């Protein structure tokens, strides 16, 4: 049996293990891995997510048990200190010795800390490991106690520096990015795109200082500022250095491997170092005189090393490595591919820039206009995958290449073909090197007919996930080409889409879940189909969540929002955010009585947190007595209709937005839908109610109301689109009635209106045709169905409080009167919060 030792348990080191165990016969090789960090390998690319959720485990590439299950000996917190090439052994910091037949070095890199006077002061950090982040966070918490508006500088305006700036901002510090070059992300962006990004980041509260060389770091013991030149100072309370990386190549140096003049261990295209038993992969490998700091080439190197060790000598590293990248930086898409900057003698550039929308798109085209050479996208990178494929596969350009970035503007020249037009050799998933051909074969020959099955079989989409939209298209199109209908069944229990189930329930007048499952489904249901069907019953019969409680999601089952410690929050309806002083006092009194944490929500109402299950009916009894109704904050249903103050008070108002918003919120309250719906009404085009990022929005203009639909905030913000202009309130309401009803009947489960519109063939023009021109002849039916829902509304909390049987559900134990004694709260700014998760 031969022994392979991997030094380094980072992303590339892990990938080596993964590929190795998938190919090797476990009796012929033993795999030993050393990691210097206390944790198992984690996803460093998404480090800033650790700040958002504090969940280090979620970042890990695989749990510790995975190594056990695959017979990998894993030593974390164990640094390898020496390599003895003559005896083929290594020793560790704790003086243990291990023999190897093959050694794989994957020690990665460390942050480069420039020799500036004062870098050793307290409050100077680097940005690389979870431990670095935790130290930075602890220091930030400390200075927030003593300094009023603490500032933090980030040295380095590259990719990692900007990620660090986001992290610092999330910690509650004012971020200042310091860059030596005259532009941000100097390696990926040209001057103009960099400026577009800069303007966008500045608008988000990140301060940018360009062309700054730091002379020294000021402070007595700890950082208080930075000095760039005479009289050019910046006061800061913390400094995060992100000025590039240096390979951790000291092991290679000390055992005499051939090194690059500026660091890195020299490897050939088999990833072999100057010692044939030793391989180097990832950020320590100097290949073609270059260090590659990206995940995809690192993974490719891992694959080559695995094959070379197993004797598959034909697997070699590609001669040219594609450095294309796409990432979401602080919510802004940034991508560059091929040759992003190109001198004029090589080709022409087509550039589109729109600073008001923070958009920049550039493609570089060969002189004869036939080939795509590279490009840059800022603000919108949804076409990146196709552009990259066109570049990598040297596909012919359309006649008007500007359509590639501007979209087709009429005429016959379409901008993109479908993903099926790619050659079979096109690499669709670059992290896992999966080609279009492999994906299509896996669908055709192995019967992997869903994205889930494909990603399990080929590993495509499991890296950065950027290729997912393409894989979805490929699976769909391949199935279509086989003559198979692409079934969008909601789960294993119903072979129907939500729309089909909706029609079945309506036509056969089915009234409960069990009859539907017995009639047209199979098995016993699950957490996917139950709430989806519950939503259909609610939309057709307007039944409340109380009747079939156990098919509801937990929030609907108990008519409240479950929070992190299993307690619930309570939100009464405050239509359009209009609330009387008397109602405010009532909410205050009740919240105080039950010791609830209160906060104003984003939807202009008041949320009361920390209620235990048995307290919910008591709280609601009192709220109802004060005239409140349920706010359905827990439901996939209408949440709120946000309003500005409108012409009643505002000197710019064109119409009474509050009155309209109250009417609309009361009209649609209680209506359940495939996902939550939110509305907005603004009294003028200044749009203080943000109606254009709602599922439906009305904006008062000279001569009536403009109606917008299918916008949302959330993870993928999308502006609502214009449905109709300058109509009166009655007409505006009628069109929104029809639009909502049509959406409720046709959308897949848990799909917001924006996502529904994206998938709808014909898009907004088709919705206009259905809603305004009645092209399907269903307008009258939609009107009646909506009116039925409006007319049959009842407050489900009133129902629950008044019905003893429903009310009896609100106890933690069925066999004891007591409350759950495991719930713990801690104090927070004169209120309370759940004790943090361990």
């Amino acid at each position, binding site marked *: 049996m031969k022994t392979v030792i991997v030094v380094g348990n980072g992303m590339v080191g892990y990938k080596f293990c993964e590929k190795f165990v998938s190919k090797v016969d476990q009796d012929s090789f033993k795999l030993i891995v050393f990691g210097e960090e206390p944790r198992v390998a984690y996803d460093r690319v998404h480090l800033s997510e650790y700040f958002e959720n504090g969940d280090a485990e979620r970042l890990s590439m695989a749990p510790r048990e995975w190594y056990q299950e695959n017979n990998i000996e894993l030593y974390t917190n164990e640094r390898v200190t020496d390599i003895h090439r003559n005896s083929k052994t290594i020793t560790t910091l704790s003086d243990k010795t291990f023999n190897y037949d093959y050694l794989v070095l994957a020690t990665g890199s460390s942050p480069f800390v420039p020799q500036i006077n004062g870098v050793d002061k307290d409050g100077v950090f680097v940005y690389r490991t979870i431990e670095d982040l935790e130290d930075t966070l602890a220091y930030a918490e400390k200075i927030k106690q003593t300094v009023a508006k603490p500032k933090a500088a980030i040295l380095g305006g590259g990719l990692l520096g900007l990620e660090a700036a986001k992290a610092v901002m999330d910690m509650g510090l004012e971020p200042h990015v310091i860059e030596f070059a005259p532009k941000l992300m100097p390696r990926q962006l040209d001057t103009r795109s960099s400026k577009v990004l800069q303007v966008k980041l500045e608008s988000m509260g990140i301060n940018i200082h360009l062309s700054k060389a730091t002379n020294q770091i000021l402070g007595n013991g700890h950082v208080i500022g930075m000095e760039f030149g005479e009289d050019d100072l910046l006061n800061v309370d913390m400094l995060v250095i992100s000025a590039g990386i240096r390979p951790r190549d000291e092991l290679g140096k000390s055992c005499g491997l051939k090194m690059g003049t500026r660091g890195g261990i020299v490897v050939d295209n088999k990833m072999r170092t100057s010692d044939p038993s030793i391989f180097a992969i990832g950020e320590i490998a100097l290949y073609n005189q270059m260090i590659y700091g990206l995940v995809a080439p690192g993974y490719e190197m891992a694959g080559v090393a695995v094959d070379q060790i197993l004797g598959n000598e034909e697997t070699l590293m590609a001669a040219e490595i594609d450095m294309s990248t796409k990432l979401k930086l602080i919510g802004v898409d940034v991508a560059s591919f091929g040759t992003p900057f190109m001198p004029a003698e090589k080709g022409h550039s087509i550039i589109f820039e729109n600073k008001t929308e923070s958009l920049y798109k550039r493609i570089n085209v060969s002189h004869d206009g036939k080939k795509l050479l590279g490009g840059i996208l800022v603000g919108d990178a949804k076409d990146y995958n196709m552009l990259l494929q066109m570049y990598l596969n040297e596909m012919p350009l359309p006649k008007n290449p500007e359509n590639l970035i501007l979209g087709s503007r009429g005429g016959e020249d379409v901008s993109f073909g479908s993903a099926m037009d790619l050659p079979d050799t096109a690499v669709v998933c670059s992290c896992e090197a999966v080609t279009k051909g492999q994906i299509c074969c896996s669908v055709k020959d192995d019967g992997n007919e869903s994205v889930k099955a494909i990603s399990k079989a080929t590993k495509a989409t499991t890296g950065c996930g950027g290729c997912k939209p393409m894989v979805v298209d490929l699976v769909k199109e391949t199935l279509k080409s086989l003559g198979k209908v692409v079934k969008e069944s909601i789960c294993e229990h119903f072979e129907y889409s939500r729309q089909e189930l909706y029609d079945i329930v309506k036509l056969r007048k089915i009234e409960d879940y069990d009859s539907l499952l017995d009639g047209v489904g199979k098995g016993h*249901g699950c957490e996917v189909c139950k709430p989806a069907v519950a939503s259909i019953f609610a939309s057709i019969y307007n039944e409340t969540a109380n009747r079939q409680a156990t098919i509801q*999601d937990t929030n609907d089952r108990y008519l409240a929002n479950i929070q992190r410690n299993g307690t619930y929050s309570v939100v009464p309806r405050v239509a359009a955010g209009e609330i009387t002083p008397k109602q405010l006092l009532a909410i205050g009194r009740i919240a105080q009585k039950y010791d609830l944490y209160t906060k104003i929500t984003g939807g202009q109402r008041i949320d009361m947190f920390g209620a235990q299950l048995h307290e919910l009916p008591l709280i609601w009894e009192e709220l109802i007595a004060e005239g409140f109704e349920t706010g359905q904050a827990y439901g996939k249903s209408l949440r709120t209709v946000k309003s500005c103050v409108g012409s009643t008070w505002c000197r710019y108002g064109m119409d009474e937005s509050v009155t309209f918003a109250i009417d609309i919120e009361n009209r649609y309250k209680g209506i359940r839908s495939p996902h939550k719906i939110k509305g907005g009404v603004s009294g003028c085009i200044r749009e203080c109610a943000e109606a254009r990022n709602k599922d439906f929005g009305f904006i008062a203009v000279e001569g009536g109301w403009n109606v917008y639909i299918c916008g949302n905030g959330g993870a993928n913000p999308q502006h609502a689109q214009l449905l109709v202009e300058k109509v009166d309130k009655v007409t505006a309401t009628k069109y929104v009635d029809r639009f909502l009803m049509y959406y409720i009947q046709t959308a897949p489960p848990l799909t917001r209106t924006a996502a529904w519109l994206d998938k709808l063939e014909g898009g907004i023009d088709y919705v206009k045709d259905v809603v305004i021109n009645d092209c399907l002849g269903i307008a009258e039916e939609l009107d009646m169905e909506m009116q039925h829902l409006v007319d049959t509304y009842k407050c489900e909390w009133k129902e629950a409080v008044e019905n003893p049987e429903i009310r009896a559900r609100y106890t933690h134990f069925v066999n004891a009167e007591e409350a759950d004694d495991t*719930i713990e709260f801690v104090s927070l700014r004169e209120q309370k919060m759940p004790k943090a998760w361990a």
Partner: protein
Amino acid sequence: MISILNTYEAVEPEKVSLWFKAAPVEKFPENGGACVKYKDKQIAVFNFTREGTWYACQNLCPHKMEMVLSRGMIGEDQGEPKVACPLHKNSFSLKTGKHLNGDLNSIATYPVKIENDFVYIGFSE
């Protein structure tokens, strides 16, 4: 909280030494669950009417250590009866306690019997 987790250990039917009389059958919703207190333990009991079977497991979800599983939706995954945690939809087999959509630790399951319209949970202590 880890110490709480360790108080729950699966009980095999043949190892039951004590049948705890929990509550009348009608206290448990059809195709749903409710929580039973036994000493310092919280046990989620499910009345899987569609299968005609009863199941019991710890009420504690091992993901974030919250006492919520009894409020989860039950169902079935390729024939395996399961409960989905209401917090993050981790689902666990009601038969074996195994985590079905990830790598969390298994949850402890307990035998249930019905006698004279009363629900009994089996313990081995």
